[in-house]
């Protein structure tokens, strides 16, 4: 909370002096309290009045508008989201922390918040059950509550031999130590080999006693696992491969080692009878159930846990909390109405376009392109959506076929020509072409040395080019596929293969084209193309969304002062939205992200592509290029060449992308190889 003092009463008076406080006890008291931070008692003394009077002055000052209390919007949002979650799911309490805060990870920040909540609730004599996981361990490592007596901390599940730091044993023992409590382990594995084994074990007196204590728990503090393939529960090996798929298809989350469906119902599978630990019914019977969980991948799992009534206190973050509410059809109402301009413009119903029938837009574009560049490209006979180089095929040369959806002009026909691709295929707007035209293009340019397909990593393209490749292979044509993945914003480094292929793909077109022109064999062309893709890094941003000819609607909403960072080439929203910054700040933002990944050292060289996403002025692209060059120079990285302009667009998106190709001598020499196409020509 940031109190702010506004002096309404002296607005018209230019002589605002402290002495005047004397005339106005409300202002005086407010100043001392909010600005100087004195206690009410101290203020009473200083003003020579009673403490209740000071209290009354302060209340009066607020109601009369002398003091305005502003809640920072971020804090306000956490408040409304936590209230909405609490009301909607009938929780005892809910703590929502900002998703982005200090330098700690979200897990550690959630752990810290969970530690506060637990400390506030825990009492001497309590039996506290605890599950396992990264967030829970972080909570255990941050909690401190001296003065508690006779607390027991009991493991909620059996243990695991998995090689992870956050095992059930570790979580319980860390927490017990921090609380100066007695640790009660569960002396058995969480998942045993058979139901029979479980029956035998739970009758053993040691385990029976431990489970008895678990059944007496007054509170539980737990994590919630997502069952997404990348979740901790899978990567930890906690399940030891026991999750037979067919039985658990309906499961979206896991609590205390048990599985629940989207509606929060128990999902009973073969592991059920082999699990040692708290059952879901037992869990629901625990008076206070504190769940600490956040992260967008957990939304479905947390929602399921809330729906099933397994949680009474939730600790999460804003983004996750909002995701849960959105999934429930609740919409964030914290956005304050923006001031209306005096003369409101009529709201726009559609984006203006220079097209005829939207259905014909792609075909008419291609007709125009072929006419404009008839000395370079021509349609493949019998196929409206396949374009080939005018001079081809060349016997013994690897043929290169590229393509993707329409709307990226001058991609893809702009990269067809001598020393570049042999053919390009386009689909409908932002939709992959079907296999037919890809096959037609392949047959038209195959020179007997094999064909290399190059396209961006989008599911439609992967499927359709994949099917075409299968069919061509069946006809005896050797086909290799390069799926480009240069968009650093679209997935973390560890899952690079999941990244989208965007503007940097044109470097791969160029290098592969040159390799083929040098009559290198298919395997070598393939390896060089892969090598180029691996050394290409792209990141984009948008100031305004694009709109499809068919819909004439913006493909996403962007606030009046917002920009989208990491935006995709089909108008896919990116990774972050923030206020538009100065060009240099934006350039730094993109370049820093690239430099984070690119292992370039002083003296290395790069090729740059500052690409328009459709509707940004060239002048602004040059401003960005200038800054990028400045930064690279300061770092001692040489720039071999800079391409600036429209190379790979996204219809009418106002935005740009920066692609950096980390050169080596081989790529550099291929980059310089002569070529003749609409876009690249040398």
């Amino acid at each position: 909370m940031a109190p702010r003092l506004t002096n309404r009463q002296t607005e018209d008076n230019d002589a605002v002096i402290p002495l005047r406080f004397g005339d106005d006890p409300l202002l005086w008291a407010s100043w001392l309290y909010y600005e100087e931070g004195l206690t009410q008692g101290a203020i009473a003394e200083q003003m020579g009045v009673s403490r209740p009077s000071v209290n009354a002055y302060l209340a009066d000052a607020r109601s009369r508008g002398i003091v305005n209390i502003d809640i920072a919007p971020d804090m306000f949002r956490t408040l409304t989201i936590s209230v909405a979650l609490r009301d909607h799911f009938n929780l005892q309490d809910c703590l929502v922390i900002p998703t982005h805060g200090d330098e700690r990870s979200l897990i550690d920040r959630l752990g810290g918040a969970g530690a506060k909540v637990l400390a506030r609730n825990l009492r001497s004599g309590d039996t506290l059950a605890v599950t396992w996981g990264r967030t829970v361990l972080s909570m255990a490592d941050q909690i401190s509550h001296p003065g508690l007596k006779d607390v027991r901390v009991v493991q909620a599940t059996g243990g695991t031999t998995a090689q992870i730091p956050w095992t059930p044993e570790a979580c319980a023992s860390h927490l017990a130590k921090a609380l100066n409590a007695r640790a009660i382990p569960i002396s058995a594995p969480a998942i045993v080999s058979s139901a029979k084994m479980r029956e035998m074990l739970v009758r053993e007196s040691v385990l029976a006693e431990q489970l008895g204590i678990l059944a007496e728990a007054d509170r539980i503090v737990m994590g919630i696992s997502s069952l997404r393939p990348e979740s901790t529960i899978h990567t930890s090996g906690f399940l030891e491969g026991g999750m037979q798929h067919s039985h658990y298809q309906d499961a979206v989350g896991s609590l205390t080692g048990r599985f629940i469906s989207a509606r929060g119902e128990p999902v009973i599978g073969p592991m059920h009878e082999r699990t040692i630990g708290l059952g879901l019914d037992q869990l629901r019977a625990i008076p206070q159930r504190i769940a600490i969980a956040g992260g967008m991948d957990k939304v479905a799992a947390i929602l399921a846990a809330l729906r099933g009534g397994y949680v009474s206190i939730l600790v999460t973050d804003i983004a996750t909390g909002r995701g849960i509410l959105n999934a429930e059809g609740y919409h964030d109402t914290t956005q304050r109405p923006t001031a209306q301009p005096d003369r409101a413009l009529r709201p726009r119903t559609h984006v203006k376009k220079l097209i005829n029938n939207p259905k014909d837009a792609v075909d008419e574009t291609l007709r125009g392109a072929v006419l404009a560049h008839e000395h370079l490209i021509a349609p493949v006979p019998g196929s409206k959506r396949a374009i080939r180089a005018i001079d081809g095929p060349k016997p013994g040369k690897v043929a290169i076929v590229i393509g993707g959806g329409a709307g990226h002009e001058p991609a893809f026909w702009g990269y067809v020509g001598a020393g570049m691709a042999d053919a390009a295929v386009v689909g409908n707007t932002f939709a992959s072409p079907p296999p037919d035209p890809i096959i037609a293009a392949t047959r038209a340019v195959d020179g007997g040395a094999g064909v290399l397909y190059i396209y961006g990593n989008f599911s439609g393209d992967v499927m359709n080019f994949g099917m075409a490749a299968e069919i061509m292979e069946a006809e005896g044509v050797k086909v290799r596929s390069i799926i480009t993945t240069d968009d650093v914003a679209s997935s973390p480094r560890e899952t690079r293969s999941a990244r989208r292929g965007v503007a940097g793909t044109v470097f791969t077109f160029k290098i592969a084209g040159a390799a083929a022109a040098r009559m290198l064999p298919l395997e070598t062309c393939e390896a060089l193309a892969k090598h180029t893709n691996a050394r290409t890094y792209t990141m984009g941003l948008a100031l305004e969304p694009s709109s499809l000819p068919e819909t004439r609607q913006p493909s996403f909403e962007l606030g009046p002062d917002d920009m989208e960072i990491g935006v995709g080439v089909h108008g896919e929203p990116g990774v972050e939205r923030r206020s538009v910054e100065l060009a240099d700040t934006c350039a730094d933002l993109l370049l820093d992200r690239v430099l984070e990944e690119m292992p370039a050292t002083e003296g290395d060289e790069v090729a740059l592509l500052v690409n328009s996403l459709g509707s940004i002025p060239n002048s602004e692209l040059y401003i960005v290029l200038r800054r990028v060059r400045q930064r690279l120079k300061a770092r001692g990285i040489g720039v071999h060449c800079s391409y600036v302009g429209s190379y790979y667009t996204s219809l009418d998106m106002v935005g740009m992308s920066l692609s950096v190709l980390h050169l080596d001598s081989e790529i550099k020499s291929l980059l310089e190889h002569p070529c003749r196409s609409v876009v690249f020509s040398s």
Partner: protein
Amino acid sequence: MEDFSSRKLIDLFRLIAVRMSDARRELGALDGAIGDADHGNSMAEGFAAIVRAIAADDDRPPAEVMLLAGQSFLSAVGATTGPLYASAMLAAANGLDGKTTVSAADVAGLVPAFADGIAKRGHARPGDKTMMDAWAPAARAVLEAEKAGLAPIVRLSRARAAAIAGRDDTRAMMAAVGRAASLGPRSLGHIDPGAASAVIIIAALHEWLHAQRPPVPEKAQ
């Protein structure tokens, strides 16, 4: 119930095409929220293309009708939906291979066959917020009802109910594959358009089979 000829199979595709065309706008709106708004058009035009292709000749055996349906859908649509439904229809064609007519049980069996073909091509897992979240539970419902000895029409009504529940569950899912995947959290709260169009197909299969029952003879006054 009598078995159906290829001509009847064409009739079935015609009904799906009509239902898909009716839903064009609604599907487009769903897609607009998390994709590029063309799903309604793609599906309607894809099934219209099927009807154009297969209606020309009603002498083909059922498996060939199904195969041609898949090919024409793929050529008309491309994108992601094209290969997925083409694979669905190819799987269905394999199941109908050698048959001269199609039984009511075969019509119900189209649901697990489609689901199988889509799963093989798309590799989407449950919870990925795709059409599979409607197709997979629908296929399970058909197979379970079949095991329980229930009539084909009941299998399809169970499939329809399961597909609707699956479709509605996509609201709470975050897209993991396909175009909407890059939206991540922003796909929450929206129904997946692919799951919605899957429901339309399954509901049309049910509606069509329901309409094929022999007329109940009227009681003499």
